[in-house]
């Protein structure tokens, strides 16, 4: 709805007058907590109490503010000034500066930029492309509201779309709205969400299930975590609307155990919603009810695969099974089950609120809306960004991320994690949408975006991802269990400079075999990083070969 710079400058709806109350929004998401955000927040609260400013300065915890690599971060309302690298030692100075401002008499004094700076940190210019080129739909309230207080979410309209859906729309109308919006699943594969909902809605059966996939296993990705930590009610409401649309009464959120804060925030949010009769039986006076339970997974990557996830929810070993039957037909305990990703559910409320046409007007022909990315790697400004589909990689990486540090020069951008591939610098003009990325041999994936500069060894990258798949293979099917080991061995041989042309031929023969014969998406996509680096950086493989038998000599 808003670009982040606007969002940063927007006061809480309850703020009586911009200057009568100042609000400090402290990022309380995992990234900043790791850097000492909890101590900072405590320090601020103490300093406010010491100066008896509780009525004039509000200290609130909020979800991720975006440029996580520079944490801990905080923002000060009403003007939304953003500061990075703030520590507990800065707390007293900041409150003193705010106290000074509150005493200001002239308007000029009140509106002058805050002179305070964190000792070791800096003020972040929210006029930079990192903020201005964003379009926050999924994250519209993330970083603005206190995720611990349901009131904060309700002030910004939470559960209003659920009420409207239940009281004013038929389930079929809700499904139709989602279908017309063009929303596609954000969990990786991009399956049309409306179609999935329609399939589950059509299935016979009284007891259907809605599952939110919050397993988020891609190394380095934390989009879903940020949403769950910063705006949990958004996801709960999206799930409840989905449940109404498909005729389900039971919901599960499958979340990895490492996401401690998200689990705490979700548990609290579920309890709060339940107390207010926003979850539970007989919602909004209608015969519709919906309950949500958390299922905490032990953090196996493969448990993000939907059939493995279902097994895990059922208490079985988390291994995939062949599809069909799809979860829509037979999911949790054999019941028709709708599985969507966190970000998919987080898009539901704005679509209902603003309309399908509004959503469909954002993005490209085949990819509507926005996508949240975790911009990491060799990039000056990394963090969580939300951009309209169709934004070019160049815009995201060079403009918003401000390119590679140390002027090393950008070499490639990796998307889709272990299931994806690289886009070389020469193709950086590529638009970020499902079709364009697929045409280049990579995928949108769930939102990991790793920037690589010229110091990056592409064979090592391929080996890194293969090692990941080797470790994470569930071991059920042969091509993935044994194939990832063989592929990893071949890549290590290349890295060590021991590979011959025959080994390269072996590598190239094994990739399609593993991709085409593996049982689930993990094995099917495990060769992608290899194929992609072979496609764009083949010379790096060739340069390492040592003389030796040719392919023909060893039977390949």
């Amino acid at each position, binding site marked *: 709805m808003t670009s982040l710079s606007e969002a940063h400058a927007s006061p809480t709806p309850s703020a009586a007058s911009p200057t009568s109350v100042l609000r400090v929004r402290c990022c309380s998401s995992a990234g900043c907590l790791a850097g000492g955000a909890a101590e900072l927040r405590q320090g601020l609260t103490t300093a406010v109490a010491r100066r008896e400013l509780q009525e004039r300065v509000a200290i609130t915890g909020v979800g991720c503010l975006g440029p996580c690599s520079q944490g801990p971060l905080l923002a000060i309302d009403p003007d939304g000034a953003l500061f990075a690298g703030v520590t507990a030692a800065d707390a007293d100075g900041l409150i003193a500066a705010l106290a000074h401002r509150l005493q200001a008499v002239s308007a000029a004094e009140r509106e002058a930029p805050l002179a305070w700076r964190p000792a070791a940190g800096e003020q972040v210019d929210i006029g930079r492309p990192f903020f201005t080129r964003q379009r926050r739909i999924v994250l519209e309230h993330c970083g603005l509201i206190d995720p611990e207080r349901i009131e904060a979410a309700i002030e910004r309209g939470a559960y209003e779309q659920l009420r409207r859906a239940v009281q004013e729309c038929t389930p079929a109308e809700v499904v139709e709205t989602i279908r017309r919006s063009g929303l596609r699943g954000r969990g990786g594969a991009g399956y049309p969400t409306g179609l999935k909902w329609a399939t589950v809605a059509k299935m016979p059966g009284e007891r259907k299930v809605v599952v939110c996939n919050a397993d988020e296993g891609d190394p380095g990705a934390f989009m879903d975590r940020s949403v769950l930590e910063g705006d949990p009610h958004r996801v709960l409401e999206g799930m409840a609307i989905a449940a109404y649309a498909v005729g389900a009464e039971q919901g599960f959120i499958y979340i990895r155990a490492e996401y401690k804060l998200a689990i705490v925030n979700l548990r609290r949010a579920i309890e709060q919603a339940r107390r207010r009769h926003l979850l539970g039986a007989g919602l909004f006076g209608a015969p519709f009810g919906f309950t949500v339970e958390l299922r905490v997974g032990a953090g196996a990557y493969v448990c993000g695969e939907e059939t493995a996830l279902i097994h895990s929810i059922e208490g079985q070993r988390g291994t995939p099974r062949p599809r069909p039957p799809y979860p829509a037909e037979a999911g949790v305990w054999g019941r028709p089950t709708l599985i969507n990703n966190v970000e998919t559910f987080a898009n539901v409320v704005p679509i209902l609120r603003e309309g399908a046409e509004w959503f469909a007007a954002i993005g490209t022909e085949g990819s509507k809306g926005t996508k949240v990315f975790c911009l990491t790697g060799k990039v000056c400004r990394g963090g969580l960004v939300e951009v309209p589909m169709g934004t070019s990689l160049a815009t995201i990486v060079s403009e918003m991320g401000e390119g590679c540090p140390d002027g090393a020069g950008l070499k490639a951008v990796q998307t889709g994690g272990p299931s994806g591939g690289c886009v070389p610098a020469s193709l950086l003009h590529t638009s970020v949408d499902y079709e364009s990325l697929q045409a280049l041999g990579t995928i949108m994936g769930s939102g990991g975006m790793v920037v690589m500069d010229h110091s990056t060894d592409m064979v090592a990258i391929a080996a890194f991802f293969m090692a990941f798949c080797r470790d994470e*293979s569930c*071991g059920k*099917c042969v091509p993935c*269990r044994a194939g990832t080991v063989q592929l990893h061995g071949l890549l290590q041989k290349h890295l060590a400079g021991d590979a011959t042309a025959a080994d390269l031929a072996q590598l190239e023969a094994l990739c399609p075999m593993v991709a085409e*014969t593996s049982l689930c998406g993990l094995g099917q996509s495990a060769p992608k990083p290899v194929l992609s680096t072979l496609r764009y950086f083949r010379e790096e493989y060739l340069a390492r070969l040592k003389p030796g038998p040719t392919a023909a000599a060893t039977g390949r």
Partner: protein
Amino acid sequence: MSVRTLTIDGHAVAMATGTTLLAAAREVWVPIPTLCHLEGLSPVAACRLCLVEIEGNGKLQPACLTPVAEGMVVHTDTPRLQDYRRTVIEMLFTEGNHVCAICVANGHCELQDRAVEVGMDHSRLPYRHPDRPVDLSHPHFGLDHNRCILCTRCVRVCDEVEGAHVWDVGWRGEHCRIIAGLNEPWGAVDACTDCGKCVQVCPTGALFDKADTSGEKHTDHGWLGALVRARARGQQTR
């Protein structure tokens, strides 16, 4: 009973709805290699040997699980499938330790049979020689993990047919291993009824009768299908 007509490697065949491609192929004498599949046990489609090409379907499908459909055109033996099958077999041989000459199943082993069928005279993939244990704690039977191909037939027969659920799969990926009870020595698991069904269905020499020595393990799976069918008809209850 409605019928679906399809072609398998050019042979027209009509089968009842719900029949698998594997059963349909056998009907017209088209051999499709299998390992994890065993009539009478639930399908898992894990070994990937039976994958076939279906025209108009971009993905290879397991014949042991895919039901026949009207007008399907199935190819079971294309050069691509031949190469992939051989690779699967090579992966199985290289991920364990198969020293056939000293194995109880030598000469009667389904993995050996499959190797012959796919024309494997050597492995193009390197041998890994993992360090795997042998469990001889059971009074009558033994489990040599070196020869286990993780087909899970033992897991399924013990759970689905014997009802004892002694076996499971532990760990993941290359570290997967069949475990008895809660990863206990087999002999320490009280639930085991000593029925020997797992030994009977094991396609390799991994599970064996201690009385057998090299080349002496003979198995016959016909009884399983017969038992399961008889139970389904209520003719036999155990």
